[in-house]
């Protein structure tokens, strides 16, 4: 036996034969046609590797559906009036509507930031505009406990779920637990949010080889986008996940990233947002300053001013860096609209149903 081990050739023989044996066994038992599981997380082929810890929380139908129910349940807010879906609406790529530039929580309390869309979060490393939350699982804790959102302590959320007539049974079925605890509530909500993958827009079809997916106007827009915007809104996520000041605040009152990193160099910086489905997520910027994409582009070319931490890619030598004609702006906007993913915005798996 030891002889074989010491000879590499012997090993190759061993392992290859074993490999083929396994292969034959595997093949003979494989189903005739692959069964598509709508509730499984699948990385789009042109996306980077996800960052989410799937090893601890694999998405499955029961967990996803439980997460969906929690996401839509207003009884998990202090006064029973607000659910996650009050501020994160599917038709707006899970952003808030233009009716609520600043999100509205319990008692009609106004928040200080615009609710971002929820999509492709499995690929992000940090969450919220300032990136203070370092894992998707932890995001609901902040949403529940924030007094301008749901204003309820997380232990109370879990206690309400535990007392609920149906939830404990659903947790048992999804996670095989006899008692509802915090981590499984968070895993269920993560499962729901992890399947919010938007990767089937006209742009994606173009990238995946359908050269006719974009019109020549939209292609001109893509070219201009790559020239002026790509350095921050990096494809295919349309964010490089960094924190920057693009001059969205006239005077910096929200310190953004500095609140988390505690260094002045990060003052007024915010996570570069994804531009996917941007057509339906107005108003724009963390402070909801702009209602239209044209206003955003006018901001980049004419509105940006000197500020301590202004990004040198948008302002340098005393003037805005990005120069675009009116025509070019329209081309970029035409391109940005190819990032709309109708299949995502109307995917029935996200609908608020209990089945």
């Amino acid at each position, binding site marked *: *036996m*030891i002889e*074989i*081990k*010491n000879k590499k050739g012997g*090993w190759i023989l*061993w*392992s290859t034969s*074993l490999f083929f044996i396994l292969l034959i066994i595997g093949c003979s038992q494989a189903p005739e046609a692959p069964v598509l599981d709508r509730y499984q997380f699948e990385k789009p082929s042109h996306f980077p590797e996800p960052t989410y*810890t799937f090893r*601890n*929380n694999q998405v499955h139908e029961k967990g996803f559906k439980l997460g969906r129910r929690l996401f839509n349940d207003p009884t998990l807010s202090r006064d029973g009036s607000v659910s996650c879906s009050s501020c994160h609406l599917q038709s707006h790529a899970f952003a808030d509507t233009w009716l609520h530039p600043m999100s509205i929580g319990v008692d009609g309390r106004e928040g200080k930031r615009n609710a971002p869309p929820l999509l492709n979060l499995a690929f992000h490393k940090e969450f919220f505009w300032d990136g*203070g*939350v*370092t*894992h*998707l*699982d*932890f995001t609901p*804790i*902040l949403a529940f*406990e*924030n007094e301008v959102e749901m204003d309820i302590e*997380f*232990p109370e*959320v*879990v206690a309400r779920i535990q007392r609920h007539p149906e939830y404990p049974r659903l947790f048992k079925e999804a*996670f095989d*637990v006899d008692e509802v*605890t*915090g*981590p*499984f*509530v*968070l*895993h269920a909500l*993560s499962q729901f949010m992890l399947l919010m993958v938007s990767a089937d827009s006209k742009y994606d079809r173009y990238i995946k080889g359908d050269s006719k997916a974009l019109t020549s106007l939209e292609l001109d827009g893509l070219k201009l986008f790559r020239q002026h915007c790509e350095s921050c809104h990096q494809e295919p996520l349309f964010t490089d996940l960094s924190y920057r000041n693009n001059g969205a605040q006239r005077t910096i009152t929200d310190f953004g990233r500095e*609140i*988390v*990193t*505690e*260094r*002045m*160099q*990060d003052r007024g910086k915010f996570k570069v947002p994804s531009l996917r489905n941007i057509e339906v997520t107005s108003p724009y910027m963390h402070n909801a300053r702009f209602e239209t994409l044209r206003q955003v582009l006018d901001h980049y070319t004419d509105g940006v001013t000197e500020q301590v931490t202004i990004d040198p890619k948008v302002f340098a030598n005393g003037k805005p860096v990005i120069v675009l004609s009116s025509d070019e702006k329209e081309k970029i906007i035409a391109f940005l609209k190819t990032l709309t993913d109708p299949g995502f915005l109307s995917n029935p798996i996200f609908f608020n149903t209990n089945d």
Partner: protein
Amino acid sequence: MPCKNQLSKMKKFKSLQYIISALLLSVSLWSCQESENPDLNETGEMIVKFDNYVGNRPLVLDPTGSTNYRYTLPNGQEFNITRFGYYISHIKLEGPNGEVFVDPMLASAAEIKGYYRVDQSDPSTFEIRLKDIPAGQYNKISFNLGVKEDGIVEGAVAGILDRAAGGWFWNWNSGFIHYMFEGHSPASERVQGELRNRIRLHLGGWKNISPTDGTPQRFFDNNVTISLPFDATVRVNKTMRPSPHIHMDALQVIGQANFAIDNNIHTPLEGRPFAQRLSDAFVVDHTHQ
């Protein structure tokens, strides 16, 4: 000797080969075990006891809102304590003859291992029972004060790290409060809701990021490794369960702080000076064999 050789060569082979060779060699390895001292498999327990003090007086909690000030800082400021505790993890024991025991760690949604919290409001948490320690002599303990990266990057986990079960978790800047000190002092004018004269020192922070471009550091890792020699070498075996008593002195952590100013610590940077004093606050006072 040949057994040892085989082991080291095994490392060079990759997964499948490794597994198969493990199977093939199990017979020959088995022969190695025969010659081993059966005592090597003997294990025992140790109970590590934490006693909290303020200077030389035992640390006692007062109800929130209390104006009974039991303690005094070196600068004369009076204070009391209404909530107190700390997380401990990564416990390791070492002995004079190369004995080593590393307390196993696990962080998952169903279960955690190796994370402890000494919570002054719950005396059952003052004793940490370590199990499956290889029999032998031990004269040193080390542990991490706080919850390191490994307790955070896995996402939502169970037990004392579950926010819903009272885990001391920062929701806005993910991470745990390693060391929690709350009370009142007439020197503090800080108001927290209905509560007056508030002191809250929440020490947390689990990562250092030092930019290469020379700009100031982002984030501060306030986890602290604490290594303490025992006052005497103790023996662990089937029948002997020694118990080192560790004293923690909160005054050492407060240091020269002034409660008129330093009364509301809630970020890694603010907590830094306190965290740097943590290792001086712990000492093994005595050991029961």
